[in-house]
């Protein structure tokens, strides 16, 4: 008897919850990568975008998030987002690509978006997914200019996370920026082969600083915390990545900003207005306000800012194309002369 009662009530709960789900089609849910929604990085930036979207469309939309603590959570979390009635589900981070593709395929009536991933040739392009990538090389170029104009030793450093992948864009953009501003400057480049190893980051940056570097930029995730520590101890300039990282050290010169918040807000608004463009690969650069740099008037002089903004205008207009790989770099540097 008890079992039957339990079963009936469970079914009732199930039916009611699915009905509730159907009655609110205007829900946008984001699934975070590990680190949580307040990670002072990607997830937080994405959530700020959704909050801005909600505030701009008061009463019409509901936004929420589901946190993943490990890779095993991606699939259940994405499914849960759809089951709870999200009309648009955001996957924050390329790590979720496969799971997102699978979920989107089996739920073709609702929309999805993924940050930092675009289908390669062998991948299927789905009509209900917006693929959002960023031109990080353009943002890196700008902070490279700032580094090149700021260094007094004509020696700057770049610390990468894992070699042989997306980080080359950051490295080459930065390298190009430094050389554009200061052809005599030396750029030290080293990869840590880890995204989460603070001592390695600190070790690399300290070695660079002992070798004369006085500005160090990183694109190394958590390893970058060690880079900031090294800059802090040696009192040299640190350049953050993805979000404003000035909380890591007071010696932060600027940060290369990836405006995930802007992207999510814009595309979510398009979706709300019925203009969602599935299967589209967004590639957001300076012209689309997808990347930028952190400006602190105490750290960056008006002179430097004028030069950087001048280059930014040239990039926006298409007059200047920033290289994305080491193969293109020599030709670019030659063209500057």
């Amino acid at each position, binding site marked *: 008897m008890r079992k039957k009662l339990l079963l009936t009530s469970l079914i009732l709960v199930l039916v009611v919850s699915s009905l509730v789900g159907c009655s609110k089609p205007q829900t946008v849910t984001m699934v975070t990568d*590990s*680190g*949580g*929604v*307040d*990670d*002072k*990085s990607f*997830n*937080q930036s994405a959530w700020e975008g959704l909050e801005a979207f909600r505030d701009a469309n008061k009463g019409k939309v509901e936004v929420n998030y589901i946190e993943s*603590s*490990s890779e095993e959570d991606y699939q259940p979390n994405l499914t849960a987002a759809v089951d709870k009635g999200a009309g648009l589900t955001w996957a924050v981070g390329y790590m979720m690509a496969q799971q997102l593709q699978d979920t989107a395929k089996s739920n073709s009536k609702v929309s999805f978006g993924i940050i930092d991933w675009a289908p390669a040739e062998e991948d299927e392009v789905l009509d209900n997914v917006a693929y959002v990538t960023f031109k990080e090389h353009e943002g890196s170029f700008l902070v490279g200019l700032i580094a090149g104009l700021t260094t007094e030793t004509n020696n700057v450093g770049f610390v990468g996370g*894992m*070699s*042989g992948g997306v980080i080359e864009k950051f490295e080459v953009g930065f390298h190009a920026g430094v050389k554009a501003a200061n052809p005599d400057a030396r750029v*030290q*480049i*080293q*990869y*840590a*082969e*880890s995204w*989460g*190893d*603070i*001592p*390695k980051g*600190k*070790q*690399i940056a*300290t*070695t*660079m600083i*002992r*070798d004369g570097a006085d500005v160090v930029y990183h694109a190394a995730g*958590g390893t970058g*915390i*060690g880079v900031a*520590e090294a800059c802090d101890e040696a009192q040299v300039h640190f350049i953050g990545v993805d979000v404003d990282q000035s*909380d*890591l050290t007071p010696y932060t010169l600027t940060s290369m900003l990836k405006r995930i918040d802007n992207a999510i807000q814009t595309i979510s608004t398009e979706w709300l207005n019925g203009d969602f463009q599935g299967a589209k690969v967004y590639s957001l650069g300076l012209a689309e306000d997808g990347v930028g740099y952190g400006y602190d008037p105490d750290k960056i002089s008006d002179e430097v800012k004028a030069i950087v903004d001048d280059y930014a205008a040239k990039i926006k207009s298409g007059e200047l194309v920033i290289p994305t790989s080491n193969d293109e770099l020599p030709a670019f540097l030659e063209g500057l002369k």
Partner: protein
Amino acid sequence: MNLNYVTITTLLFFAVRSAAVLLLAGLGGIFSERAGVVNIALEGMITMGAFMAVAVTIVTHQPWLGVLAAMIAGALLAALHGVLSIRFKANQVISGTAINILAAGLSSFLMKSIFDQGGHLLLEKAPGLSDWSIPFIRDLPWLGEILGQHSPGVYLAFILALVTHLVLFHTPLGLRIRAVGEHPHAADTVGINVYRIRYLGVILSGVLAGFAGSVLSIGIGSAFLENMAAGRGFIALAAVIFGKWTPLGTMAACLLFGVSEAVQVSSNLLGIGQYIPSSLMATFPYVITMLALAGFVGRSVGPAASGQPYDVDQR
């Protein structure tokens, strides 16, 4: 190759420092394995120790209390591993794996619930452990640059390696630990309490691994990062195997791995990056361990009863 006084001393300084963290965890591994319990959970104990050290230091502003908390946290996780694998005779590798997963989740969870922070936790205004600077040594050329100033944990790691060697091979307690790991039934018949020795070994391993975690987070660095052990627990185990389960051998292995790590992360700066990719160099400790296990670098055989639960009735 770009070799000069600065690059070489910098490289060796970092090699010693990386080796020390591995060594502390490795000594823990020795105590546990010598007593007959495989401890694959060193990784999780380092993570938990790293977190507790930062958490307690933020609250109390006393970094040495943070170190103590890290040791206690490691010991508690180790006690859990002990109960599962000694009392309940669970498979030690599975128990260890479970503890690694538990530590990763628990540290993130506590960080979020206590400090309302995700991803990483900075010491900010709280002080980390200040370095020790050794008189006389610090004034020497070469040696002074390499060994003159380090985090206290670095010096303690090497001292503890000697202490562990003396304890294991020159005291009755060491003999008991080794006997329990080699042949627990024989040890039992001469009146050694096998369970007690095993608990002792496992808990000591937790204390040392927790200490290693605190060196990582408040000694060398000043922050906790999710999963910040970054494989060091496993490399430490590799060092134990390569070092043939002896403290001095493990110390040598840790120094070798430390040098390899230092070379790997400065491969481009040294000018060897174009010949050997740094990602390939990162695999060095694992390759060496496989070679050691396969018998290429001398025979490497662990304590005979390591990994087997002790059952009094079994013959």
